[in-house]
């Protein structure tokens, strides 16, 4: 009995010791992680100017103090209280999420890589959003000339040049790609954002897309699922009515076959942008959808009522608990 007690004490002691050892180990690991991340952060910070210098456009005098410039701009513009102001030129968002900017695809670029033409007294040069919109495409073009040439030939690009009412609404680079939080293409998050981006102007089309298998799969994280741009094209997008469109009568099948090599003509007549419960849907699709809607309501309602009444009677007659129940 006493021996048992002793060995128990011994065990308890060992346990305490091993607990201490474990605690020390955890502490050491946490410390190591903190130190390592601090070191990493420090090295990234020191790397920044070098990288910035190489990626900044035209290694002119602008580049020399570019990291200073970004820091200087963000001194004010990363203050949330700047917020959004409304003036006769429209809405201007003056606040820039510093962390999101540094995480973006352009995170290593200085402000004046895109906001060209100023370095010392920026507010005289870029004093409103409209001015920047007018110059934005040119700024993008400095690095992304190929994409810009494709865009210029596209429907979006043609609209922009028109100077018409439609042209006013036509998207420029930043309308699709965003600005300070511009995303790296090819990531899942980027692909998941595409339908929302298109939906900003093509309202309702994104909802019908999201209800197809492609839309459901991309929403839940299947990276390889097709989004708007895989069928419609991206920079060189054209209306489906245009014979050059990726979805024109002549081109639609090869477009499907990019992912579905065995697709035939019939395959390409699948209707992506259909809301089954809308009267605009093909009659048979609409009929089946409405039939099910009514059927589901009827069956659930009847089943639910039947169940509740059964439970009510069972409780009232004491069939669940005790007298006269079951067996």
């Amino acid at each position, binding site marked *: 009995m006493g021996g048992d007690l002793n060995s128990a004490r011994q065990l308890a002691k060992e346990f305490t010791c091993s607990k201490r050892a474990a605690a020390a180990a955890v502490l050491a690991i946490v410390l190591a992680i903190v130190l390592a991340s601090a070191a990493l952060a420090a090295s990234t910070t020191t790397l920044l100017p070098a990288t910035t210098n190489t990626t900044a456009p035209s290694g002119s005098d602008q580049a020399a103090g570019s990291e200073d410039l970004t820091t200087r701009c963000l001194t004010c513009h990363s203050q949330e209280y700047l917020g959004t102001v409304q003036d006769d030129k429209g809405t201007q968002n003056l606040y820039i999420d510093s962390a999101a900017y540094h995480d973006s695809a352009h995170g290593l670029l200085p402000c004046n890589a895109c906001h060209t033409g100023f370095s010392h007294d920026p507010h005289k040069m870029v004093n409103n959003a409209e001015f920047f919109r007018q110059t934005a495409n040119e700024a993008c073009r400095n690095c992304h000339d190929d994409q810009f040439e494709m865009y210029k030939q596209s429907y979006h690009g043609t609209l922009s040049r028109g100077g018409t009412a439609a042209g006013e609404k036509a998207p420029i680079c930043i309308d699709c790609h965003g600005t300070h939080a511009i995303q790296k293409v090819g990531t899942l998050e980027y692909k998941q954002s595409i339908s929302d981006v298109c939906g900003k102007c093509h309202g309702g089309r994104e909802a019908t897309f*999201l209800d*197809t*298998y492609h*839309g*459901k*799969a991309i*929403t*839940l*994280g*299947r990276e*390889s*699922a097709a989004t708007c741009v895989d069928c419609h094209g991206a920079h060189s997008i054209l209306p489906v009515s245009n014979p050059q469109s990726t979805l024109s009568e002549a081109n639609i099948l090869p477009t499907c076959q990019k992912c*579905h090599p*065995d*697709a*035939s003509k*019939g*395959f*390409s*007549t*699948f*209707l992506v942008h*259909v809301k*089954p419960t809308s009267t605009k849907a*093909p009659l*048979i*699709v609409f009929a*089946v*959808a409405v039939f*099910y*809607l009514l*059927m*589901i309501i009827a*069956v*659930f309602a009847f*089943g*639910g009522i*039947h*169940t509740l*009444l*059964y*439970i*009510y*009677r*069972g*409780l*009232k*007659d004491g*069939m*669940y608990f005790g007298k006269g*129940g*079951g*067996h």
Partner: protein
Amino acid sequence: MSAGTDAKEGMRLVYHRFSPFHRFNHYLVMISFFGLVLTGLPLKFKTSYWSQVLMDAFGGVAAAGFAHRAFAVVNILYFILEGSYMAYFVLGRKGPIFSDDSIVPGLKDWQDMKGMFRWFFGKGPKPLLNRFTYWEKFDYWALFAGTVLIGGSGLMMWFPEATTRVLPGITLNLALVLHSNEAFLATGVIFIFVHFFSAHGRPESFPADEVIFSGYLPVEHYIHERPLEYENRLKAGTLDQVVRPAPSKAKRRMFGWVTGIVTVFAFLVASYTLLLIIWPLFF
């Protein structure tokens, strides 16, 4: 609880309701149904947080899609088995097709349903139920029809290229609407509105009915639950075909465990499904 256990311990005779074949089929239905719902429903409720959790747990959409097809194969298997049994029963004239005893709905089911509603409101006695009640017939045929519709549309979407080589592209639109709605209907019927309650939750069998897992139920319970079948068999002298000595204690305990585990699992799956569906309404 103790009363039920005592009754079971003292059980002398049991009524054999389901053959091993039908119990085996029910296991297949169960496995494939749970699997298909868990891998399929997240697609329908794609914006629900719990859909994402489930998809990630399966290892992503592609992996869940593979599992969905694997469960579909199990589904096809039980459908072939049950279909073959049906053909064997009908062609081999194993029993009358239109009788009180059969699974085919008849006039009595309509009268039973009216009788049950009268009983619910205390306006009459509980109707004398036969071998298959109207809600059991509903379960059976709804599942049968549902399997044809969901299975057919599912196969179309599994092989979209082959399907549209023969049929127009709108077939796939129809297949999706049908598959998704019918699956939602089936999930609601099985998990919430009909089956789980009518099989396990109703007062006569609460909290769980062992009969589909063990195949038998105590004779006293049988007389109480299927009075008309009992009476008919008594008159026809066919009771000895279905009433047998109770199996061993160990066997009964095993079926108790099986029923318990399946019931808990089913309850968890149904709760999760319900959570997944209603989550987007609030968040």
